């Protein structure tokens, strides 16, 4: 998407039902002072414990901008008795460093794994903050190729958004521990079940992380809550993946975007309804002989009031879906 309009912060329209115990609410205030280079104001980096040992930083529901340092994706922290796993690192090195410092306040255990749920910049540009020091980067088996193929595009695009200095610090780090199907990671008295999804859904390298101890699912962008889902892989693939995803033995999900955890699998309902609506609408317009340009403004308009950032992403979703389904 290429847009001039920027929404640096949108308050959630509704509060999520409280899931798990919010036992800890850590605000690392002023941590980022001087790091978010244009915005000199201290930025709070909030972390919530949503289940025992599972922490979340909820990114803003917004488009990436200098002001929010691309802190728009959700980040997970899972603490075992031996080690820590990080799930996504945010959209800039500044976010990644704030995350790293926040982890240090939660636990003295070392970060052993950084798991990237897919290739998008808002999930991987913070990786550099964890490079070295024995951290193992983990991803879908398609992730290295995706990062290599698309990374340069992302760097160029985000240079305009975040500025030269912020981009100069980003390192595109390909994972070395690859997930073909499923992999279990042992953090000490806690295992994570990593699942690589096929076919292409949100992207062609979607990976989920299930904490088997607390039954908390970190879904990456296979699940959106409140924030409109964004199609960059395949609508058909995504709808095919959803029932399989729903079968995971989770109790709650931390979505890739959306400022709350959701009950599992009910949290999928809104997303599935939206995606099915897009599919039904594009099928109808294609059958009726409508042109792409006629269809796009009319697709999924019944969903307009149900999602944040609808106008920003729905036309693109409609375009992608139309081009995909006209070959059905």
């Amino acid at each position, binding site marked *: *998407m290429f847009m001039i309009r920027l929404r640096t912060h949108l308050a959630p329209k509704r509060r999520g039902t409280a899931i798990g115990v919010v036992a800890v609410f850590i605000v690392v205030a002023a941590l980022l002072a001087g790091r978010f280079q244009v915005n000199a104001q201290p930025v709070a980096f909030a972390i919530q414990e949503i289940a025992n040992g599972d922490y979340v930083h909820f990114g803003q529901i917004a*488009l990436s901008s200098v002001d929010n340092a691309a802190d728009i994706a959700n980040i997970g922290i899972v603490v075992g008795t031996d080690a820590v796993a990080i799930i996504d690192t945010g959209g800039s090195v500044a976010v990644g460093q704030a995350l790293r410092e926040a982890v240090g306040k939660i636990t003295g255990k070392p970060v052993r794994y950084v798991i990237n749920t897919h290739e998008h910049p808002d999930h991987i540009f913070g990786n550099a903050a964890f490079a070295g020091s024995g951290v193992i980067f983990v991803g879908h088996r398609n992730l290295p190729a995706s990062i290599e193929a698309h990374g340069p595009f*992302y760097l160029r695009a985000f240079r*305009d958004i975040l500025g030269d200095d912020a981009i100069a610090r980003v390192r595109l780090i390909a994972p070395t521990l690859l997930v073909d199907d499923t992999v279990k990671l042992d953090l000490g008295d806690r295992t994570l079940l990593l699942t690589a999804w096929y076919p292409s859904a949100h992207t062609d390298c979607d990976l989920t992380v299930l904490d088997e101890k607390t039954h908390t699912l970190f879904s990456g962008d296979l699940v959106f809550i409140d924030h409109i889902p964004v199609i960059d892989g395949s609508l058909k693939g995504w709808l095919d993946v959803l029932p399989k995803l729903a079968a995971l033995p989770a109790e709650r999900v931390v979505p890739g975007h959306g400022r709350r955890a959701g009950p599992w699998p009910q949290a999928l309902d809104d997303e599935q309804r939206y995606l099915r609506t897009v599919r039904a609408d594009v099928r109808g317009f294609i059958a009726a*002989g409508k042109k792409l340009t006629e269809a796009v403004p009319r697709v999924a308009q019944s969903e307009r009031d149900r999602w944040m950032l609808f106008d920003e992403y729905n036309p693109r979703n*409609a375009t992608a879906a139309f*081009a995909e389904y006209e070959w059905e």
Partner: protein
Amino acid sequence: MRTIEHAVAPAGRRTILGAAAVGFLMPSRRAAASPNEQDPWPALASQIFPDRVLEDGSDLFAIDAPYRAEDAAVVPVSMRIAQVPHDTREIRKIVLAIDANPSPVAATFTIEPGSGIDSISTRVRVDDYTNIHAVAEANDGRLYAVARYVKAAGGCSAPALKQTADGIPVGTLRFRVFPAAEPGTDPNRREAQVMVRHPNYSGMQMDQISRLYIPADFLEVLRVWQGDRLLLTVEGGISISENPVFRFGFKPDAAKTFRVEVGDTGGNRYSGVFPAEPAA
């Protein structure tokens, strides 16, 4: 008219273009072209149409494209006749050029006399904020230009990511004649659409497995016949989107079938014959 060469960008330029933005979760704050930035069109026009005068074509035909493209790799562009009654000019050829693209000429459409073709739409890749020009050669031998500004970037090098494993083979053709929109509409006008399953590789996309640039391989020519009568010829370039789609308005005759022939730069030829009446 001079033959248009669909040159692939030289390797040195790929680095720059290859770094262009692919649009995803990435609002661009790219500034609008500064006043100092030179309009590439005058030089480009004289390359494409050497020693020719381009007149304003706005009373002959119109071009339309979204001002802000949702997907730079799939930017819909349409052209349609916009003449006053008794204007006897007929368009014989339209060159569609995307000024800022590495290979600006996206397509050349040759319209057969009597075909009744009065509109053509397709989808193109747009690599940067740019004007899209359409230049028509009319039966009076003159050239008429219209333009539309589009905000999009990165379309030529955007990786072909939105692929589904639906198993539809390259070269698959689909053809559709749309039913007359409503009773009372002009019986001498219908719309048809040709779809070609083809990656239309621009030469600027990277193979995700081999990590090498995929050589350009694109639709070179597409012809549509109504019965035995040629209607439309499209000579394509790398700026046409993946899985090219062409939709056009035409004058129906008594022919029972349409025939489509396609050739790509890899030397492959694909063809199909399709019924003239839409399936019930």
